[in-house]
């Protein structure tokens, strides 16, 4: 699905990179249609909410007010105007928990995605640039990772190492590396054959210089696209794990763990699960839409 085989994007050589990057965002904005602009603005709002969530939250997310338990969101019968989105079974404010949960969910997915980008990127570069036996071993590992659905590797790791936050972040970091490794390797292989790389080699440039100045700028677009596309699946992985009770431990709120806890009150107080569910769905829909659009806008073709 994220098997990206990009035709080489517009090639640019060292030197022109900086100017391009400065105008990159503005150019993307100009390319976006009205609907996509709304998505982008909404996504910016989500990110701002996640960053400033703790400052905006009206209550401590873990403060229990037993007198205000199970209050529905404002607008429903027996709601309390003090709790906009209602409270859960322990009287914790759902708005505050959702804001904190959003921050935590996005943060875990963000750190995880950088770990997998770093890991997969390096292995992909090695596999593509060095080739030979090392490359073959790396690609065999990629095959193994594809053969085993990642949720199972995650379960295995959690069973072995216990479920703590660092374990969860590392697991999520390992989740996406093989996609990066494959795409980076394929890109490095095709860029390395380009005449300008040959020219740089002939001019006596070091491997590092060729890699960073000539190869990497040319494979940036597909990497950005894979990053957006895997980001939503990392959010999903974290939420699923937390939902099952194998991720972040209570009382810490993430969107997934909130849905998981609300599950037990579905019949009597469904909003406990519905509020974080909607937030979760909204975020993953936005990220996917933007990823899809970015793939077209940056001219990376997905197979």
């Amino acid at each position, binding site marked *: 699905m994220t098997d990206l085989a990009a035709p080489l994007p517009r090639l640019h050589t060292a030197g022109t990179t900086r100017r391009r990057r400065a105008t990159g965002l503005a150019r993307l904005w100009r390319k976006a249609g009205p609907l996509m602009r709304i998505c982008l603005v909404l996504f910016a709002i989500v990110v701002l909410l996640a960053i400033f969530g703790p400052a905006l939250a009206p209550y401590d997310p873990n403060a229990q007010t037993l007198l205000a338990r199970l209050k529905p969101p404002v607008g429903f019968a027996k709601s309390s105007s003090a709790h906009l989105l209602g409270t859960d079974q322990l009287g914790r404010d759902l708005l505050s928990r959702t804001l904190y949960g959003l921050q935590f969910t996005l943060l875990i997915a963000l750190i995880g995605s950088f770990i997998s980008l770093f890991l997969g990127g390096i292995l992909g570069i090695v596999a593509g640039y060095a080739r030979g036996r090392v490359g073959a071993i790396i690609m065999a590992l990629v095959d193994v990772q594809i053969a085993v659905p990642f949720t199972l590797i995650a*379960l295995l790791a959690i*069973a072995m190492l216990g479920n703590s936050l660092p374990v969860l972040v590392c697991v999520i970091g390992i989740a996406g590396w093989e996609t990066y490794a494959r795409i980076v390797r394929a890109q490095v292989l095709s860029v390395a054959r380009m005449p300008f790389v040959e020219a740089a080699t002939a001019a006596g440039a070091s491997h590092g210089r060729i890699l960073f100045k000539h190869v990497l700028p040319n494979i940036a677009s597909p990497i950005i696209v894979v990053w957006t596309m895997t980001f939503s699946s990392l959010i999903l992985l974290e939420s699923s794990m937390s939902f*099952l*009770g194998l991720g972040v431990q209570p009382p810490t709120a993430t969107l*997934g763990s909130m849905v998981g806890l609300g599950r037990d009150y579905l019949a009597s107080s469904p909003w406990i699960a519905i509020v974080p569910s909607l937030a*979760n769905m909204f975020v993953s829909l936005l990220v996917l*839409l933007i990823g899809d659009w970015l793939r077209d806008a940056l001219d990376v073709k997905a197979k």
Partner: protein
Amino acid sequence: MLDFLGRRILGAVATLLAVIVLVFFATRLSGNAMDYMLPPGIDPATKAAIVSQFGLDQSLWVQFTRFVQGLLHGDLGLSLYERRPVMQIYAERLPNTLLLFSYALALSVALGVPLGIVAALQRRNVIGSAITSLAFVGYATPNFVLAIAMILIFSYNLHWFPSSGDATPLHFLMPAIVLAAPMLAEIVRFTRNAMLDVLGQDYLRTARAKGLSETLVIGKHAMRNAAIPVVTVIGLQVAGMVARCVVVEAVFATKGVGDLVVMATIGRDYPVLQFGVILIAALVVTTSVIVDLIYAAIDPRVKVAAT
């Protein structure tokens, strides 16, 4: 063809072997599983007896050769919790999961392919865009969110379906729908795109020019060519479905392999867990071989390229 098949199977076996080695050593990395299982302050002699009962006092290499021998003989040891053969537990659980998979697969193919074709043929009007947008939402909705929405609507409000368990075929309907949703969405998207690619081709114009009916043009000439990417996405989605069944079975309390694996993770029952991972890897690898074969069957170019 035989050569292609042989090489494909060899690759699959190699991958599976790598998975077995990886799983075995991964489960032993964290040290002695018995340290978590037994109560603290247990009598050392009793502990030693239990440890040797499970063969955990042997060297890693001996444990590994025993493990592989066991796998080959279908003897996978005892569950640390249930004290029953792992094989027996999986034999009880597997039918439910396979049933769930077949429902979900049938549902998503039976609905996804026609919807994708309609979305491609009607791409310029409301029907087409409605199908495409729905497919996107279906893909983006986390499966536990969909599961909870369905339980709320169809179990608690409408009382149509039971919310959990696996007693009757009716119990499987909601989990199957949740399991199928992302796959259905992907099949719709891929069928639509594949059809759009094919619709512009010259051979369709030729088929129309020689007077074939529109049904025959779409049903025979367009479908066969559009089927190739669709088969790919079905193959890819089977792996995703296996991963999702873990959550879906846990939500709907379906006594299947996914639920078992989650329980084994929580309880650190590693004989159960390690076989679960190997079993599921075997399932996914087999699927991908089958997909490649179907591939070769519908696209003659694959065979030519392989030889």
